Every structure is written in C-alpha cells, then in structure tokens.
C-alpha cells in the first residue's frame, strides 16, 4: 500500500473502528471520538502536504471535515454524548472522508449511501418526518442509477480515467444533477433540510449538511466528466442555485424555529457555493471553495451554540419572542453573533473575501441573476441578526436555576472557530491561495473544449504504450488503431 493510500485508510478506518468501539464500550465516549477525529485530522494534514496543489481538493476537504468533526465532539453537550450519537458521528466522518477521497464510482456510491444511513432511522440520528429519509434515499437511488448506466455502457468506473468522456451522455448527466438537487436541497426539493434540522440530532445533522456532498459531486464528478454538457447546461443549474439562495432567504424571514432558521441559512449559503462552482470563473470557483470553509465552520458553530442553549434553557426555544439569554450566556451570544454574521459577509471575517469573490464571479458569468446573490446574502444577514436579537436580547428572564455561560471546553472550541473565520479574514491570502490550486483544476476540467479523449479507457500494456505515444496529439482516434476495444 502506498503512503497516501495508507494515510487515507487510516483517516477513514480509525473513525469507523472507533464508532464500533463507542457502541460496544459506551465509556469515555468523548475522548474516543475526539481521539479518532484527531487521527483523521493528522492523516489529512499529511495527505494535504503530500498532494500537489492543483490536485489537493479531496485532501483539503478531508482536513476541513475532520477538523469540523473534532470540534463537534468537543462541543457536544454531555446530554448528547451517547453511544449511538457518537458512533453515528464517527461513522459519518469515515463515510464522508471516503466519499471525498474516492477515485472509483462504486466506492463513491458506497460512501454516499453510508453517510445517509444514520439519518434513515428516527431512533438513531434521523428525523421523525418522512421527507429527509425520502430525499436521502432518492439521492442515493438516483446516483446508483447513474453509476449503473455508466457501468452498463461499458465505461471504466475510475473517476480519473472517465474525465472528459461524458460517460452515458445526457441521461447520466441529468441523473447526477438530480442527485445534487436532492442531496443539496435545491429548490423545490429543499424542504427536507428544515425537517432534518428540526427533528433530528442537531450536531449530527449539521455534520450531514456540512458534508456538502452535492457541491462535491459537482466539483469532482460532473464538471470533470461532462465538461461540454456542463458548459452548456450549467447556467441553468446556476440560475436554480441562485434562485434557491434567494427563495430560502425569503422563506427564512418568517420562520421562528431557531433550528430551521440556521438550516435555512446554511442551505441558502450552500446554494451560493453551488452557484460559485457553476460560475465557470476563477473568482467564482475560488470564492465558492473558500466559502465552503466559512459556511461549514459557521453553521457548525451556530448549530453547536443553539444545542448548548437548548440544553441549558429548554428545547422549546423560539425566535417568536425576545428571550434575553445574553444576560445568562454572554459569551455564547458573542460567538453566535460573530459566527452568524461571518456567514453573511461581515468585514474582518473570511466570508467577506469569499463573498467578494463569489459576487464578482457570479456577476461576471450571470450579470442579471447574479444580482440575486448579494440580495440573498443581505436577507440572510437580516435573518441572522433577527435570530440573534430574539434569542439573546430582550428582558432578562428569571426562573433559571443554572445560569452557565460557555464551559471552558465549549468556550475554547468556539474561540477556535471564531479565530479561524476572523484571522482567516484578516489574512485571507494564505487560505485563498490554498484553494486557488483546486479551483484551477476545476476550471481546467471545465475549460477544455469538449473532445474525445486521446487516452483509451480499458488498456493493456501495449495499448498504454500507444496511448503514451499519442497522448500529446489531439483528436487522435485510437479506437481505429490496432483494432482495439475502446469505450466510446
């Protein structure tokens, strides 16, 4: 096993093993979960250091997600530290990392399905309502169908080797886009996200949403595999994503459930990520990837703070009245405000840069519909501020016997999140430059004119030599040489 492969196996295998251990042992759950996440973090760091900048998208996403999970395990309230929850979170971590690192369609499908399993059961991490289950199942089913069609058409299942081949044509492209729409919660199939956040386990659901599998599918599969089709049809999906961002931003204006509100914020902002990825501009794609970091960190922090408030003040928190919780939990209030406004482009935070790039990129590619993005962001900012005022401002409430602000472990992990968005915002060049390589790779995958690949797909040794000879030539129809069986 090569060095990167063994590190990847470590990053994925340790959380899965730890998930089994937590379910069996049911002791020291937080320590086990944090330790396992930390192993994934370290392995991802090493992987990222080893990967060339232009091909480091999976590794960077792995690092981001493992850090997110490590933070979540620290912030998790004691009440939620159950074997099932911790096991589910670790299982989700392993599945998500597997999906990010997969180079084979079957592996990707397996990871995609595995990441949904804990949320398909109401007694585990799932919601009571049927819509989240239906959406997750539908997205998995559609992706499976797409991969089946690719396999049936005789193509290889290696993602790298399928690049620019448009395997399966429009049917597969359409199915992949449908899988994105279901999983990402693009309008009109967005309602499940609110249900999942409302009824499911808050922190685990935040991790599910922050996997951004839809965006990952776009960046890693759809754009590289279908550059020509994507170029023609992506504006449609981009318009849809922008419309979703605005629709959800308007929808959130009258919502009073804090969990749903944060889910809508996450949804609206992640639609912005999708719009950026589909903008086909360097600024837009880079902005989308940087915004990915901001959205995951901020929404994770917001969900964690909300859960901590629920544990302290009851689970029936509402944005329908002023609760005045800042008097009892001032630090949580400040963390909430900073992370919330960081989601909406507060200057001095990383999202100011990412929003700047996103707005620039989307306006360049879609001058009219691109205007929806700043409008949606403005509304999201108002929603964040409304939620903040309702939860934290207002008359001081009495009747609480325990008035704890953030505990030290919660305080420091939330401080780390705030520092990430603030220090990242003050010195964004390092982070932006880190994502420029992957963004260029996405751009190149999209930017090359559609043409048949010079490389054969199923090749033997002799054929590899022929391919190597002709790899520098364009439009060489290798299938006519030597009577080889090429997939076209």
């Amino acid at each position, binding site marked *: 096993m090569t060095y990167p492969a063994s590190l990847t196996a470590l990053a994925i295998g340790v959380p899965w093993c730890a998930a089994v251990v937590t379910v069996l042992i049911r002791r020291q759950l937080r320590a086990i979960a944090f330790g396992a996440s930390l192993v994934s973090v370290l392995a991802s760091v090493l992987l990222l250091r080893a990967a060339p900048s232009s091909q480091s998208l999976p590794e960077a996403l792995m690092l981001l997600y493992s850090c997110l999970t490590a933070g979540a395990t620290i912030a998790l309230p004691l009440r939620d530290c159950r074997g099932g929850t911790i096991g589910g979170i670790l299982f989700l971590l392993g599945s998500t990392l597997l999906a990010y690192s997969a180079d084979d369609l079957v592996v990707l499908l397996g990871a995609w399905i595995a990441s949904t399993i804990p949320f398909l059961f109401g007694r585990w991490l799932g919601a009571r309502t049927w819509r989240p289950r239906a959406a997750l199942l539908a997205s998995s089913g559609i992706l499976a169908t797409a991969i089946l069609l690719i396999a049936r058409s005789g193509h290889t299942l290696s993602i790298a080797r399928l690049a620019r081949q448009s395997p399966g044509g429009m049917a597969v492209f359409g199915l992949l886009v449908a899988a994105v729409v279901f999983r990402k919660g693009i309008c009109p199939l967005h309602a499940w996200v609110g249900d999942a956040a409302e009824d499911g386990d808050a922190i685990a659901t935040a991790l599910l949403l922050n996997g951004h599998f839809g965006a990952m599918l776009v960046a890693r599969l759809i754009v590289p595999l279908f550059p020509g089709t994507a170029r023609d049809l992506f504006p449609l999906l981009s318009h849809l994503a922008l419309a979703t961002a605005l629709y959800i931003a308007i929808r959130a204006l009258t919502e009073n459930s804090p969990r749903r509100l944060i889910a809508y914020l996450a949804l609206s902002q992640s639609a912005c990520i999708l719009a950026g990825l589909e903008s086909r501009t360097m600024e837009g794609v880079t902005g989308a990837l940087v915004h990915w970091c901001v959205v995951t960190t901020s929404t994770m922090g917001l969900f964690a703070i909300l859960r901590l408030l629920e544990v302290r003040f009851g*689970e029936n928190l509402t944005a329908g009245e002023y609760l005045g919780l800042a008097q009892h939990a001032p630090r949580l209030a400040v963390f909430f405000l900073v992370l919330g406004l960081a989601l909406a482009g507060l200057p001095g935070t990383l999202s100011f840069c990412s929003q700047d790039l996103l707005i620039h990129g989307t306006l360049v590619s879609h001058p009219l519909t691109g205007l929806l993005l*700043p409008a949606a962001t*403005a509304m999201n900012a108002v929603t964040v*501020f409304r939620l903040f005022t309702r939860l934290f401002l207002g008359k001081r409430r009495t*009747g609480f016997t325990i008035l704890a602000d953030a505990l030290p472990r919660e305080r420091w992990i939330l401080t780390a999140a705030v520092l990430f968005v603030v220090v990242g915002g003050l010195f964004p060049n390092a982070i932006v430059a880190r994502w420029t390589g992957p963004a260029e790779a996405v751009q190149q995958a999209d930017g090359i004119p559609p043409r048949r690949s010079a490389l054969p797909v199923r090749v033997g040794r002799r054929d590899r030599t022929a391919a190597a000879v002709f790899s520098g030539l364009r439009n060489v129809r290798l299938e006519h040489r030597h009577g080889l069986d090429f997939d076209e």
Partner: protein
Amino acid sequence: MDFTQVMLVFAVLAPGLVSAAFALAWLAGWVPEERVVSLVTGMTFPASVAALAVVVWRLLSAQTVTVAFGNWFSVRDYHFPMVLLADRLSVVLLGMTVVLVGLIGRFSATYLHREPGFFRFFLLLHLFAFGSLIAFAAGSFELLAGGWEIVGITSVLLIAFFQHRTPPVENALRVFAIYRACDIGLLVGVFAMHHWAGTASFASGLPHLEGSRATTVGLLLLLAAAGKAAQAPFSGWLPRAMEGPTPSSAIFYGAISIHAGAYLLLRAQPMLAQSGLASAMVVMVGLATAVYGTISGRASADAKTLLAFASLTQVGVVFIEIGFGLKWIAVIHILGHATVRTLQFLRSPSMLHDYHQMHAAIGRQEESSGNWIEDLLPARAQLWLYRWALDRGHLDTILDRFVIHSLMRLAKLFARLDRIGLPRTPERREQPVASFGAAARERVG
C-alpha cells in the same frame, strides 16, 4: 515605509487594536475596570491625533500619503488592493473622526459611569472608530466597503445598547435591514467598476468611466450613500436610531456615520460629474431629504429626534452641494455640521435646562424659527403638512405596506408551500419562556 506612513497606519489601526485587545481580555474572563477603559481610550485617540498631525504636516508639501500593503488577496487577475490613502479630502474626515471620537470617549466615561454596558460601549466605540478610519483612509472602494460595513454593524449594536427593552432591539433590526439592502448598491457598484474599468482603486486616480457606465455606477453608489446617510426615501430609520445612548447618537448620527455617505459621493464625484443623470439624482435626493427633514423636524416632540431631522436636512444640503460639484464647500459644510451637531447631541439631555436658562436671560419665550413661512400656507395645507410631518412623511408606512408586508406575505406563502406533504396538524404552540426553568434544572452538559 517612512515615518509619515507609519504614523498613518498607526492612526488607523490604534482603535482597532484596542478593540481587539478588549475583546480578547473579555473572552479570557477579564472585564477591565472603568478606570482602565477610560485611561486606554484617553490615550488612544490623542495618540491618533498626534500621528495624524504628522500626516497633515506632510500633506502641506505633498499631494498624498499612500501606504500600499500589496494585495489583501488575489485570484488570477482579480485583486483586492490593500492601500491606505491620506489626501486633502480624506485627512479632513480622518482628523474629524479621531478628534470627535476622542471627545465622545471622554464624555462617555462620565456619562455612562456605572452603566451595565459601559465596557461593551467602549469596545464598540473603538471598533466603530477603526471602521470609520478604514473607510476614510481606504485607497480603494473595496477597502472602503469593509470599513463601511464595520461602521454599520457597530451602529446597529449600539442602537440595541439598552437590550432589555424591546423597542431599541426592534429598531436596531430595522436599521440593519435598511443598511444591508442599500449596501447592495456599494457591492454591485464596486463590481461594476472592476468589470468595466479593471480596478476599483482610487489611490492613483478614480477609475475612468463615461456615459451609461458612469451613470450606472453613480446611481449604485448613490443608493449606498443614501442608505447610510438616511437620505430620502430611506430617512425613516434615523429617528429610530435615536434609541441608543446619547454619546453614540452624537458620534454616529451627528458626526461620522451620517456623513460617510457624503464622503463616498465625494470620492466618486469626478465619476458623478461624467453623468448628468447621476448628478441630478444626487441633487434631487438631497433636496427631497432637506425638505423632508425640515418639515418633519418641526413636528418632533423630543430633542434627539429633532436633532436627527436637523442632521438630515444638513446632510441633504451637503448632497446638493456634491451634486452641483461644489466639492470643497461640501467638505467644509461636513466639518462644521459634524462639530456643531455633536455638541448639540451631547447637550440634548440638558436641553430643557439650557432653554430655561436662555429664556430667563432674554426675559421671554423664544419663538421657533420659520413660523412666518407656515403662516403663508392655507389652514388646510398647514393641517395636512402637520399630519404628514407627524407621520414622518409616511416613509415608514410606505416601506411597511409596499415592501416589508409584501416580502412577509411572500415568505408566508413559501412557508405554506413547504408544508405540502406533511400531515395537517396544528402548529406547535410555543411554551412560555418561564417554563424553561424546569429544563434548566437538568444537568448542563
């Protein structure tokens, strides 16, 4: 970097560093005493004034002092330049900011003594000063937008300073919504400058745009400026912003924040001059606001609201001056107005006392100015105008009825659509907050 450049950077960064230090200290569990806060504030702004004096000295012999930090971030051909610029326009605003914020800090140390939010106020005051200085010293519209947003958020947080009362919090939300809506103009304007001129930096001259492009950018910047300066039709938020503590009202709505919009237009004035339509719109907005502020102010019952409308009127006149290209008259007007209005706001809590003293000194009640103009109007028109002024020009009513209510109706429709497919159960009734006590007795994780 020479000494003058270091001084410029110091003057701009000092309040930001103090604010960051306060925030970190608080996060670490240490709330500095009032004495410490006052002392630090008392040292910061005089130091900034001294640093700016060095910059002013240099500007006597040079046109500009520029500090280029390179690009804040860049992606291929798109750059976000980090340039600080002090020229004869910005240095006036910079000087005004550090002097007036320093004075307000000194005043507030006494005025807010033993107020529960004393520390919060000063943290936000320093942050506001930092945002203002960034906006005024920015060498590009992008950086200006960054400082602009910081001014906005601190302004809103100080409106909600008395957080235990509902009206300030609700008004803060409304002001925030209007700020964000109008800031779209700035964001899109900056994008348009980038798109058409390749840069939004004005450190080495304003981006050259002509014709419809100049008009488009000019109108977008006017939208942003009108929102920040509470110009018509966005004037409704200014009286609401008076919910904050008096020192913050003085510095925001008497001096700095209210003039930020005018500064933006002054920066873009050569571009506005390229477009007759944009210039005319600036004049019309200013004129409408001046008339609105004058009439509405005459029906105001409290001192701070009266001063807010007086501010509106003067800033409206400043807009007119900018529209006509009278750049330096506008700058002098801003400087004079900010100074006088700050003093008036700070005296407003003792306004009655001042009036009693004045009336005692002159031996009679002073008549309000402009009564003879009112008398020229027919009685019915006077009554109509009085009602119009009492409802503050119906601006809030129009905004509520045609924008907010429409948006809310749309949001409710979307919410109904979202419920399709779910069983028809009555919506869960929220339990009163007092019942949270039971949950709080449980162990906190």
